[in-house]
């Protein structure tokens, strides 16, 4: 059973960070959708509702998404989904249901770096940065590999590049957690291949991307297959109640190949 002793609703990021770090068992409250499944005792839950972090802002060269924006807002944002072949909506639309996505927040999905996060996988395949209150601005790829520490995720920044992208995931049943997630994108010759739910944090398959970079605009089907094989080889996979590591490896190869094929078909 989870216990929350106090609530704080700071008016500034500075105060939120001070409260967060004042005690070991103080945490930031995101959407709180998973809280009840755990058994932790929280001394003070820091609620960010008063910081004005619920927004999707479009600028000439980038988007900014506030930490308290819901996954449903991502799904229904017309501006955001005009870009990147609409993969951000695709990545969140199978997460449980509309009611859940109205609760779950961008900040919690990204900051917690959940292995099963569909959204994190999609963001990783784009040109994404995050802004932390204490840690400042850094690329999402760098953040994903960092150990956990106490900080406050303020916003996610996505650069508007003309990346074409594809998102694929396999679920044992609709709206369940994914068995594997794959996001693939291309900007001219530069590819990104992100694989999540391995079942740990999403990760980029760097060698496979390098292989594709040398293949030019019209990548031969053989090369796509090779890159998919390489992605499955270079990434580590694990087992959990949903699938074995061996199954995930096979699935990775198939989904990456489908993703690459989809992106090469985009004109």
């Amino acid at each position: 059973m989870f216990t929350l002793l106090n609530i704080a609703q700071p008016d500034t990021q500075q105060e939120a960070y001070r409260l967060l770090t004042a005690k070991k068992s103080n945490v930031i409250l995101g959407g709180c959708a998973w809280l009840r499944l755990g058994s932790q005792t929280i001394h003070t839950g820091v609620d960010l509702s008063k910081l004005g972090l619920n927004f999707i802002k479009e600028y000439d060269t980038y988007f900014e998404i506030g930490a308290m924006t819901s996954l449903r807002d991502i799904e229904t944002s017309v501006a955001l989904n005009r870009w990147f072949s609409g993969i951000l909506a695709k990545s969140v639309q199978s997460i449980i249901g509309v009611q859940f996505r109205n609760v779950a927040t961008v900040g919690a999905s990204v900051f917690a770096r959940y292995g099963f996060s569909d959204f994190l996988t999609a963001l990783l395949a784009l040109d994404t940065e995050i802004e932390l209150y204490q840690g400042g601005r850094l690329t999402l790829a760098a953040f994903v590999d960092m150990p956990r520490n106490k900080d406050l995720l303020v916003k996610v920044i996505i650069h508007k590049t003309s990346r074409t992208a594809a998102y694929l995931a396999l679920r044992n049943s609709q709206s369940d957690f994914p068995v594997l997630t794959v996001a693939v994108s291309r900007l001219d010759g530069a590819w990104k291949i992100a694989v999540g739910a391995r079942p740990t944090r999403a990760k980029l398959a760097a060698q496979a991307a390098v292989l594709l970079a040398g293949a030019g605009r019209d990548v031969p089907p053989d090369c796509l297959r090779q890159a998919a094989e390489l992605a499955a080889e270079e990434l580590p996979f694990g087992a959990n109640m949903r699938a074995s590591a061996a199954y995930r490896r096979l699935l990775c190869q198939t989904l990456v190949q489908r993703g690459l094929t989809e992106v090469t078909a985009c004109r």
Partner: protein
Amino acid sequence: MQIELYINHQQVLLTVQPDDFLVDTLRKQGLFSVRRGCDTACCGLCTVWLDGRPTLACSTLSFRAQGRHITTIEGLRHEAEGFARFMAAEGADQCGYCSPGFILTVLAMKRELANPGEADIIHYLTGNLCRCTGYQGQLRAVKKYLGVAECNM
């Protein structure tokens, strides 16, 4: 802590604990249409509207309702009865335990989506589980209620 909110358009003042969830707070107010089904945030039975948006009451801490509008099926009686007749006509009401959450989601969908096709309807209602049967009867009821034309599917 005290929170001031609107439940079905009535202003109320409630005392809640920091870790109270809305599902329990509302049931304590006698709103027994708000059900606890799965305990894992995946069945949709506890759905209420928070400022008009369908929301899981089992995953929303009560303090976050401060100053906001909660709508349960008790606040949409006439409209809910209208849809319930379509459910009954299709034999889709069964045990009825999931009906309040389901109906609230259908009514929210009706407001949010313009001319939904079958795939849009299924997508919007995916977060609502019914353990009695499959979902064909419910889908027929929703389509008839929304007046979805055959060519739109």
